[in-house]
């Protein structure tokens, strides 16, 4: 067993024992208390990017290992897995920007109020840095209520940058925002009114493309793990449930639903693992492969979760049987960080953010 497989086993056990009992509550709790709960629950794992793992002890993980890790976590709870994914994105972006020691978790702010990649090209960012202060009317930043550091995509003059701020009086967090799925990820509107900067680091188009690729990979892995767990639950139910005098897995419509979804999911999963294996800090091709893997994964994961609920019928629709949460998680993960359509267009629009295959 390689090191990553061993870590996967440990994480799977940990999730089942320590996290699973809290999953129903995490799915109901307002996002802010959930953030505290998730951080506390995950502390013993000592994962980099999460509280309690600061400093030299936190072992660096390759993207491929991270993908396998969050996928394993998603089999138990996609929200917790997405929490970890977002924390990794924030941490790795901070490191790429030279802020390896930024207090964790790091939240990275995208936009909601405008289309970030408009039809006429470029990146549309409303946040501005002037006189070493950030002003931003950001909306819906995942992980913000849990963050020790906030990185906000902004413009300083004509240039893109990440403005790094600490939560404080001039960084106003709105009420927790309720999400369709991955509800263990705390989310809130963030408004920054002239907050002093911890740092302001230039961000090239290639850095932005890299972070989109990384987010795509990790959230795609969460979606894959969720859909696979949903299908497994549906298959188990189909083996037990009788209809027409036989178990429903013997009925062709059900057998086909399970088999076709399994095949599609395997294909998307293979693409995702291949993209994760190749993901590299200076390889634009690898970032685009990651985006394409997410484009392939999102509809497959959604379809699998939809059919898994269908196999369970009424039981699939009810909260106590767990499948409806998988469906909500899969659909939400299909929309984050961007939906498949926007990602595909971003990929094709002369290359990711105008970069050709070689960056």
């Amino acid at each position, binding site marked *: 067993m390689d090191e990553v497989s061993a870590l996967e086993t440990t994480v799977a056990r940990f999730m089942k024992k320590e996290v699973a009992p809290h999953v129903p509550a995490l799915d109901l709790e307002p996002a802010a208390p959930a953030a505290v709960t998730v951080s506390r629950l995950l502390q013993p794992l000592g994962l980099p990017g999460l509280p309690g793992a600061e400093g030299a002890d936190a072992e660096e993980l390759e993207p491929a290992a991270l993908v396998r890790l969050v996928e394993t976590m998603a089999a138990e709870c996609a929200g917790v897995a997405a929490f970890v994914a977002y924390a990794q994105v924030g941490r790795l972006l901070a490191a790429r920007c030279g802020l390896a020691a930024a207090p964790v978790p790091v939240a990275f702010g995208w936009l*909601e109020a*405008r289309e970030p990649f408009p039809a006429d090209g470029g990146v549309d960012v409303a946040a501005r840095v002037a006189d070493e202060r950030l002003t931003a009317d950001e909306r819906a930043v995942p992980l913000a209520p849990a963050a020790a550091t906030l990185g906000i995509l902004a413009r300083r003059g004509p240039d893109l940058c990440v403005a790094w701020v600490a939560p404080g009086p001039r960084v106003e967090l709105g009420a927790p925002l309720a999400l369709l799925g991955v509800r263990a990820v705390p989310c809130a509107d963030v408004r920054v009114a002239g907050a002093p900067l911890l740092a302001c680091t230039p961000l090239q188009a290639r850095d932005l493309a890299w972070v989109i690729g990384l987010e795509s990979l990790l959230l795609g892995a969460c979606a894959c793990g969720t859909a696979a767990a949903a299908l497994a639950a549906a298959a188990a139910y189909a083996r037990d449930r009788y209809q027409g005098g036989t178990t429903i897995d013997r009925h062709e419509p059900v057998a086909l639903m399970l088999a076709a979804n399994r095949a599609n999911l395997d294909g998307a999963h293979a693409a995702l693992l291949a993209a994760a294996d190749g993901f590299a800090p200076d390889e634009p091709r690898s970032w685009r492969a990651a985006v394409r893997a997410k484009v392939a994964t999102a509809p497959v994961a959604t379809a699998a979760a939809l059919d898994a609920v269908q196999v369970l019928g009424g039981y699939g*629709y009810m909260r106590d049987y767990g499948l409806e949460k998988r469906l909500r998680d899969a659909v939400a993960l299909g929309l984050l960080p961007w939906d498949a359509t926007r990602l595909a267009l971003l990929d094709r629009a002369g290359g990711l953010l105008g970069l050709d295959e070689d960056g």
Partner: protein
Amino acid sequence: MEPSSALARVVAHDTRAGQVLERGREFRRRYLDPVAAEVDRRMLLDPHYHPEELVRRGCEYGFLSLPIPAFLGGGGGLSLHSAVLMEELCAGCAGLANIFGAHYLGISGLLLSFDLNLFDRFLRQVPAAERRGEPLLFAAAITEPTAGTDVEDVDLLPKARLSMGARKVAGGYVLDGRKCFISNGSVARFTMLTCALDRKRPAESMSGFVVPAGTPGFSVGRVELKLGQRACHAAELVFEDCFVPDDLRIGTEGGGARLIEVVLAASRAPVAAIATGIARGAYEAALAFARQRPDGAGRLVDRQWVQQALADMHASLELGRQAYLEAGANFDTRVGGPLLGNPAVTETAMRLSAPLRQSALGLRLTGSEAFKRATTQQVLTRLEHAPVAAALGLSSLAKFSCSDLAVKVCLRALEILGPAGALERHAVEKRFRDAKLTQIYEGTNQLNRQAVFKGLVDGGDAWTR
């Protein structure tokens, strides 16, 4: 969204459909849209909450008595009218709307049995209570914990693993077992249900009953927390040595399977309309989002991919409407028509005979075994198998097509919103959650496809005859 050509045509020729549509629109605007998100959120934390005030408001609009015949004081609406109303209300909130929809399903179990005794004792109460501003709700309980699909198709009944049964005792029946996922089950005053008198011969012994809330031995079990349509309770109903007198049996002993078939033929068109309404709500929200969202120098709606997606969604809505309107009209003319006979004659006869029927003596007469058997023979057996199977096929076609379209439309709407779609505040994710249920209830879409095969494909040209 303006009425499509199909709906506009219906409204142009059917004054009642036009009135129902207008009332539905006003109700949606005044009462559903403002509270839909709040009620949905509240019920996530408290599934026992029942938005009674809103249902009471529905009394002012005559929603609860819409499908009850005019001779009983109701609105005299047909399957088509219920469907038109459902689309309109579900564009606002499918959960709240389905309180009325589930009520119609419960009522149809009595209505389509043409059991005059039960008409006079129960259905007549609905418009009377409505005029007093008191919502009197019905529910229909068919699904059982170990048998969902099997109890909704007479051909599957022999192999059903039933969780519930009834046994004949002196003066009535004793019901034992459970029903599950029953919409309105925890809030209904009267529940129409079906169960087998002989579990070894369920198809032959399936019988219908109406059970008032509070009947000893009848209780509400768990109220489910659902993915969507939360405002409408889905409850488990528990029957423990529950005695139901003979005169609460619907129609004749063993008439339950036939009753279910006719009820589903009537109710699947309105369910298709529910799905279409949900899709419409998602479409309207996505269009509004795309029109206001800045995209560079323009708006998101200026982008071709968004325009194509909206065109697809619009097409789905048009097709959905045509499907449910056709299915509703088909049921009303080919099944409802023969069932009621000449509406003018039936109406007059029922009105003239009302004082006698509703007297103590009259009720004893219409409640007698001989009268029920005679009525059933006169009415239910007058219906030929082919038109019912065809109506069931057509309404099932509408149901699975519209519900599949609804889920797809909601997913397109979420895509137009992008990451914002994952946020509750845009109310598209709620539409998606609501839409999924339409692929499951009233028979899963897989069962509905089988009904289409049996009624329309294998049955050849039955519905065109």
